[in-house]
């Protein structure tokens, strides 16, 4: 079974047409990989479907805009994967 990171990296490579070897756990989806908001919509939809979750993008965006969190906490891939794992763990059985 693929790890969360492998699944997310595969989604990004497929939906954003980015070569897989350019994607690392420390890549920032926006600053390093150049994923724009429209492409991130594709990524978010694919992640939501793959993991059966609803990533709280509005809440994350608000926290970043209010200066409570840096974009690194949500858009660096290893952090994004940790957030996904937490959402999966919090799903009702």
């Amino acid at each position: 079974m693929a790890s969360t990171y492998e699944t997310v990296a595969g989604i990004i490579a497929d939906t954003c047409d980015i070569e897989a070897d350019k994607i690392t756990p420390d890549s920032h989806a926006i600053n390093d990989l150049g994923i724009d908001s429209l492409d991130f919509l594709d990524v978010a939809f694919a992640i939501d479907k793959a993991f059966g979750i609803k990533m709280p993008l509005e809440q994350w965006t608000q926290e970043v805009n209010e200066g409570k969190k840096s974009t690194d906490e949500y858009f660096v891939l290893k952090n994004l994967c940790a957030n996904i794992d937490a959402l999966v763990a919090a799903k009702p059985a």
Partner: protein
Amino acid sequence: MRLEYFQMVDRITALDLPNRRITTACQVPEQSPVFEGHFPGYPILPGVLMIETMAQTGGWLVLAMLGCTKMPFLMQVEKAKMRSFVAPGQALEGEATLLHDGSGYAVVKAALSAGGKKVTDAEIRYGVVPFPNDTLRAAMLNTARRVGLPADHIQEHIHGA
């Protein structure tokens, strides 16, 4: 339909929120300046307006699900297929089903049919955001009443707004 005003949906004919589905009636006008250019001597509804009609049908579903508290803006059209020409005067039935209710976005599968035959279908994605101003929100609420969105799906005031 009033093509020049982008009023594509005449009325909502069914709204089934538990099954996340909507149907609409969209009567293509006999006359419109659009048909003078598209095309001279062979008037047909432009494909982009067929897509817009599907987007508005799905948009009403998203609006209904949110009580008209946020606005879905068209962001992406996937796998759009124009299967048949649509002539002036044809009656179209729109239908849309919500595929995914994301955070700040929504995805629907939509189609238009004429006489029971599917003429176009697509997967449509919206960015769902707060209304950018009161003018648009008021206009959308007025349009919601015009197309027959049930009143219990129209939230007149946004709490905290």
